[in-house]
């Protein structure tokens, strides 16, 4: 455990150093973050100029939901995307050999390699949007915040597993650098209550592309509307996803046959 923590600290330091080399990029992304949240809320507001509720949720409740989406999305952006996206490159160029030779689990290495902590600004924006929505609804209480924290972690575990599972596809399809795409789709679908979709799509967005557990459940927790069945469902889904994706990773590296040899 201690060795793993030390490794994570080392990875973070190396990532920060290489990021400082390209500072203008960091500024550009901060601007992009602010703007994407700004325009996102503008769109939501424009939508609510026409309708009074979406899937039974009012503007402030959807605002909290959108805040959850941003929070999850930014964690993906600063952690899962930079770390897991290069997997397809490792496989194509045969660099994965080097990872396999290291005395630590390869899943651990690819998971924590590029944690871009410098870009935490986006995360702050996401949490702020949740906070503003909760405040407007009068649900900004300590118990709500604690349950929210728990279910945000559960949501991240699900997204991580999804991401890891998609990355393992690289071992069979070679070039899939844009696995992030599916997460973006996930963000859009997750910006609305699952109840706003027709029946068949609700099933799809609960079990296949699990936006119900990843965005709806934390938003319900933050607004004091979480029910036991959804809470337990999310926990069970996260546990299954974590175990399943770990198993898939193990299978994938066994089928890896290097690139040039």
């Amino acid at each position: 455990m201690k060795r793993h923590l030390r490794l994570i600290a080392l990875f973070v330091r190396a990532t920060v150093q290489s990021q400082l080399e390209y500072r203008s990029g960091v500024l550009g992304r901060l601007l992009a973050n602010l703007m994407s949240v700004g325009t996102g809320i503008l769109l939501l507001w424009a939508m609510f100029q026409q309708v009074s509720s979406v899937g039974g949720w009012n503007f402030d409740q959807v605002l909290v939901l959108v805040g959850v989406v941003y929070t999850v999305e930014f964690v993906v952006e600063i952690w899962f995307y930079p770390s897991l996206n290069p997997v397809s490159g490792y496989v194509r160029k045969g660099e994965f050999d080097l990872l396999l030779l290291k005395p630590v689990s390869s899943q651990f290495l690819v998971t924590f390699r590029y944690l871009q902590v410098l870009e935490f600004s986006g995360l702050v924006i996401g949490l702020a949007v949740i906070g503003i929505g909760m405040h407007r609804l009068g649900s900004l209480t300590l118990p709500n915040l604690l349950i929210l924290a728990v279910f945000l972690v559960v949501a991240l575990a699900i997204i991580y597993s999804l991401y890891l599972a998609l990355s393992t596809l690289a071992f069979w399809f070679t070039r899939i650098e844009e696995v992030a795409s599916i997460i973006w789709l996930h963000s859009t679908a997750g910006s609305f209550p699952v109840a706003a979709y027709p029946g068949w799509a609700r099933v799809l967005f609960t079990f296949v592309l699990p936006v119900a557990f990843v965005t709806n459940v934390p938003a319900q927790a933050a607004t004091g509307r979480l029910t036991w069945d959804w809470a337990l469902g999310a926990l069970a889904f996260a546990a299954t996803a974590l175990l399943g994706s770990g198993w898939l990773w193990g299978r994938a590296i066994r089928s890896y046959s290097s690139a040039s040899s």
Partner: protein
Amino acid sequence: MTLPSLRALKALLVLNYSLSLQYRAQSVLWMINGSVPLIMLLIWLQLAQGGAIGGYDTLTFSQYFLFMFLCRQSTPTWVIYLMDRGVKQGELSPYLLQPLHPVWRYASEHWGEMLCRLPIVLPIVLLGLTLADAWTVDLLRNLPLFLVALALAWIINFTVHLVVGMIAFWADNALGYDTFVYQLYIMLGGVMVPLELFPAAIRDALYWTPFPYVLDFPVRVMIGRAAGPEMWWGLGVQMLWVAILVSLFALLWRAGQKRYAAAGA
């Protein structure tokens, strides 16, 4: 910047089409990402069950978002990434030595990908129109001018990205601005909320930017919500944007080449 010969153009197209075909899995993922309009269609259809919203009924929403899907799938642009890589890794150096302007290489990479997607995108749109019972006679009549508007839209979007991508010449890193432009393209293009449903003051302000002319305008031409003088005016503005952006590109390219340090060469 001279036009390439037909033979060179054909060779580039064939090359890029085969490259896209070879990496199909990636194309599929990109396509999934481009299906946001279909998700929004589901939401708006549910919302419009109780009656028309801002003049859009279920038929209009179906047509709007299906053609939004088509336009979104026809205009994906990753030229900022190409420029960034070209400058940072010196990949631009060999291209600059050739008589063919590198921009054709970049453009045809996009065309190859589009050709690869077309056989999937088109059936989805046709199937969607049938399922939603949204076939109207107007669609056929509007098709020719829609294609013109879409072609102009593609050039506007590509050159906007290209101009931003040339930041790479000065800042060594243009990739950070990719999401920035992408957001404007999606948000201001009407992918999620049709611009016509925006409060008038905001909508009028947005029309001063090139972004509504990339997605919103061609879609409205197709479904007949930009007709008559409004349509001709819109096509004129599109051409104006093309002229402005292409000149800006030519200017910046000349200046940028002088800055180009050919890393890795």
